[in-house]
């Protein structure tokens, strides 16, 4: 049982965290607003990709930095932003909350729900623009991703983690292939979750078309393992531009770490330096043998039951 003293102590501890330091803000003044791009002077401490909030509550992201000015693309219409308005820094890179809570949700590229459900509060902050994983970090493609379309699975099989471009004239059924593939990932066992997470990014489509697709996914019980990111035709160009980045950020969050892979032992052996008899390796000289290093990497994988 918790006594009243400990509760009071906890509350006092929380109060001690509060610091009354003077607030320092770095602001900018709007110089020009044209076609969804706002030129702001000031903001001397701002950095590329930083989220900026304007006086009227609208926001944007810095996509160009010059000596005295910064160019910001807007996430809203920005009709009420005028010359002389103030713009504030947030100090945050543009990011999206990624996690299990997003499953079955329809969001915009900033993570704001479009399906009328409550906002997503839990999850890991994933920056929209980040350096892609290097070749070594990536797992080799060794597990097939069954699309459920016989012609594709037989003739041009796709692996998990592989990219595949679907190209063709309009009305040929490119979206249909993608949607069918998502639906076919559903588990055959009732109540069992699919082990494939699907992220569907709709860019510049009609709202009705996106609604139809979501309806279809819902009808086929495929929405539970799907995240839909939508930047529709009437949305600002900045949101449409950011949608693929948001999709990639969510994908990165769900990507399995390379050390969980059964093949990691072989790959780590390849990376580890080879020792010769006469000359000990630099790793050995430091007191850690190459095999020790490999074992250290492999140990977590063994405990997680991957090897």
């Amino acid at each position: 049982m918790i006594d009243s003293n400990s509760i009071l102590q906890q509350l006092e501890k929380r109060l001690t965290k509060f610091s009354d330091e003077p607030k320092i803000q770095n602001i900018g003044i709007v110089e020009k607003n044209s076609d969804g791009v706002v030129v702001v002077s000031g903001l001397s401490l701002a950095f590329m990709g930083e989220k900026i909030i304007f006086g009227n509550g609208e926001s944007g992201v810095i996509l160009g930095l010059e000596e005295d000015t910064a160019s910001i693309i807007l996430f809203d219409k920005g009709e009420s932003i005028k010359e002389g308005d103030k713009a504030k820094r947030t100090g945050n890179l543009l990011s999206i909350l990624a996690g299990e809570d997003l499953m079955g949700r329809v969001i915009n590229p900033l993570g704001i729900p479009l399906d009328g459900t409550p906002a997503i509060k839990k999850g890991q902050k994933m920056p929209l623009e980040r350096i892609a994983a290097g070749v070594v970090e990536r797992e080799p493609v060794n597990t097939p991703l069954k699309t459920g379309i016989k012609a594709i699975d037989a003739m041009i099989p796709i692996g998990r983690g592989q990219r595949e471009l679907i190209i063709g004239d309009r009305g040929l059924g490119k979206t249909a292939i993608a949607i069918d593939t998502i639906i076919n990932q559903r588990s055959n066992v009732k109540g069992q979750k699919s082990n494939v997470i699907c992220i569907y990014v709709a860019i510049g489509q009609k709202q009705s078309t996106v609604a139809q697709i979501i309806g279809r996914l819902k009808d086929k019980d495929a929405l539970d393992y799907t995240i839909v990111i939508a930047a529709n035709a009437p949305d600002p160009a900045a949101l449409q531009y950011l949608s693929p980045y948001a999709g990639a950020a969510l994908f990165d969050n769900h990507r399995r770490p390379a050390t969980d892979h059964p093949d990691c032992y072989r790959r780590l052996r390849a990376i580890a330096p080879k020792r010769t008899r006469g000359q000990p390796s630099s790793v050995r000289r430091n007191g850690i043998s190459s095999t020790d290093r490999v074992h250290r990497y492999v140990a977590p994988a063994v405990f997680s039951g991957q090897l």
Partner: protein
Amino acid sequence: MTVKLLKQLIKYSYNNNMLNPKNVNRIANLLNRNDLKLYIRAIKIQERKLSVFIDTPMNNMKLKEKFKDTFPHKNIYFRNDPSLMLGARITADDMILDINLNNTLESIIKFVEEDYD
């Protein structure tokens, strides 16, 4: 107009951190419409860089003198803002420093809202 030329014109427009109307008029008469726009914008930015705005809730002459010593090479403008309650808000170029009671109360409210939800 190049950035270098614009900088030179701005330098020529000021005497001891004060805008020289004679020089400004002379430059303005020589510029075309587009260049004049750029020139006006550059002057506005320069003015902002050279000015410091100090908002205080009351007229305290001693405090004003102190601020003049703190920013010796800047044009200081004092404004009255009773909403600050106590302290001051200093705006220098694109930086705002809030050292006032209003800011303290606001940060307490924010802290309580975030931590005691």
